């Protein structure tokens, strides 16, 4: 994207009253006449100002025509423009942990409660309208706020159930990871699916009888109805108090949902790590020196486990993106009060990463589109990718080279306990898994600036830099 084209955000198309634009590393939003009017009303309200101040809403300001840098043909399409603060890394609900989705759900309900109490409605209830900034959920879709029409029910209730409540219930009540559901279905877990999943016994769990079972029954009964329920509700005297009663009950319900993450093979990793004290210090020192010397702004720690090395990176760079296949490990990293604000922890499988999907396969994008790492930490991961996930070593290194030009990678040899465990009960077809093979493949893309053996040579660390770099020094 060059500086003279304003790129339309490919995820912003459903709303006819506005569109998001990326331009010169800034975020702008064009608004229609009616949306602009709603925004100007909203802006005056003290509840809105408080939400902005507390950081629950993304920083937003209206731009005058003079301040607006967008090209003329874009400016001509909309009645007015807003500028929003930029979110460092965009993430999606299917990459979040249970507690992240729960925090987002609480924020959503809080905003509905604040809005309704002050004469406004929140049009949607989608986790895609919430982003994590400095480890806290922030609502970014400001035009969702609209003046409340009297007698109107909460139009976002069903969506709230399908995109927040049911996924959280799946995790809390059935210990079923919600991410695959959210990743496969852009509208979340629909009411009939939820009803099919929750058993008779589940109906005795808090919230299931009303929000799952009863909603699915009413859905079936009234889905094809020709009655105009909306206007009937209005003339029957539906009022915002009913919405507030429901919202408060949902707030209590969400608060009580807990997931006791246990039984994960990685969640307990830090208690069983394979290194002696000395080796662990050597590894930490190597990583710390690499980051200090290479000065990356953005670091990815893939296979971060509980984040011990992400923490080192975070103290020396602007932004760390820590990913791991294990929901439990990432949840721990997120919940740990010592985790610094510049770490964004996400659930992600290197061998099965977030795809480009949704409308025209661009509505939701892969991680590489949303974040470019200056340096990647690939520690104690390669044996899982090659042996467990069966990815050829050469291809994995090719992928790393496409992702970044600076890399710290750890080779885990066949003598290591972990590799022995992985190879047990498997036919050893992994001729490409060897130190020589790794070094040869690394050298195709990188220069190896530094190397360190740990665990008596069972594990080796490599600092890889762009090929030309050594000559330039």
């Amino acid at each position: 994207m060059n500086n003279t084209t304003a790129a339309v955000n490919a995820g912003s198309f459903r709303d006819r009253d506005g569109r998001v634009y990326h331009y010169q590393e800034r975020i702008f939003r064009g608004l229609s006449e009616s949306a602009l009017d709603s925004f100007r009303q909203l802006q005056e309200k003290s509840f809105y100002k408080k939400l902005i101040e507390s950081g629950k809403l993304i920083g937003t300001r209206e731009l005058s025509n003079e301040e607006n840098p967008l090209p003329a043909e874009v400016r001509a399409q909309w009645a007015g423009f807003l500028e929003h603060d930029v979110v460092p890394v965009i993430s999606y609900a299917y990459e979040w942990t249970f507690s992240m989705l729960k925090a987002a759900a609480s924020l959503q309900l809080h905003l509905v409660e604040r809005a309704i109490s002050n004469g406004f409605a929140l049009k949607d209830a989608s986790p895609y309208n919430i982003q994590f900034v400095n480890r806290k959920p922030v609502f970014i879709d400001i035009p969702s706020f609209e003046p409340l029409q009297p007698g109107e029910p909460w139009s976002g209730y069903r969506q709230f159930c399908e995109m927040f409540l049911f996924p959280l219930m799946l995790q809390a009540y059935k210990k079923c990871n919600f991410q695959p559901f959210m990743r496969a279905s852009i509208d979340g877990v629909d009411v009939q699916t939820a009803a099919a999943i929750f058993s008779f016994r589940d109906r005795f769990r808090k919230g299931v009888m009303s929000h799952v079972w009863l909603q699915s029954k009413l859905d079936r009964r009234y889905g094809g109805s020709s009655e105009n329920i909306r206007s009937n509700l209005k003339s029957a005297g539906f009022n915002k108090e009913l919405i507030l009663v429901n919202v408060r009950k949902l707030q209590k319900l969400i608060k009580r949902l807990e997931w006791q993450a246990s039984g994960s093979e990685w969640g307990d990793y830090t208690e069983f790590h394979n290194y002696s004290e000395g080796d662990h210090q050597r590894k930490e020192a190597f990583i710390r020196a690499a980051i200090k010397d290479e000065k990356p702004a953005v670091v990815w720690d893939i296979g971060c486990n509980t984040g011990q090395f992400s923490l080192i990176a975070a103290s020396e760079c602007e932004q760390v993106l820590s990913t791991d296949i294990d929901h439990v490990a990432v949840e721990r990293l997120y919940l740990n009060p010592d985790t610094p604000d510049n770490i964004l922890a996400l659930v992600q499988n290197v061998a099965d990463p977030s795809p480009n999907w949704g409308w025209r396969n661009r509505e939701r994008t892969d991680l590489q589109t949303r974040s470019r790492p200056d340096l990647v930490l690939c520690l104690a991961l390669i044996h899982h990718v090659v042996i467990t996930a069966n990815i050829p070593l050469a291809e994995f290194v090719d992928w790393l080279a496409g992702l970044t030009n600076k890399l710290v990678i750890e080779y885990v040899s066949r003598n290591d306990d972990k590799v022995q465990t992985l190879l047990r009960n498997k036919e050893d077809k992994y001729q490409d898994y060897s130190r020589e093979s790794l070094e040869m493949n690394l050298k195709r893309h990188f220069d190896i600036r530094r190397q360190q053996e740990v665990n008596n040579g069972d594990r080796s660390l490599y600092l890889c830099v762009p090929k030309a770099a050594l000559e330039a020094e």
Partner: protein
Amino acid sequence: MRIIVTILFLLYMTDTEAYLDPGTGSMLLQVILGGVAAVGVAVKLYWHKLRVAFGMGKKDDSEDDTV
């Protein structure tokens, strides 16, 4: 209270096509979940149907009674 209201809704339980209008059931559920505060609303919504059910009115589909 909620049980009575629920029973009244369930009196007319037949399966229909949910995909045509997925929001309607959810809107009605908000009335039920509104608890005591919603009873008045629920009764008004179903005043006509109640009268038919108790044999006090004609079987007529018009919904323009605003009570």
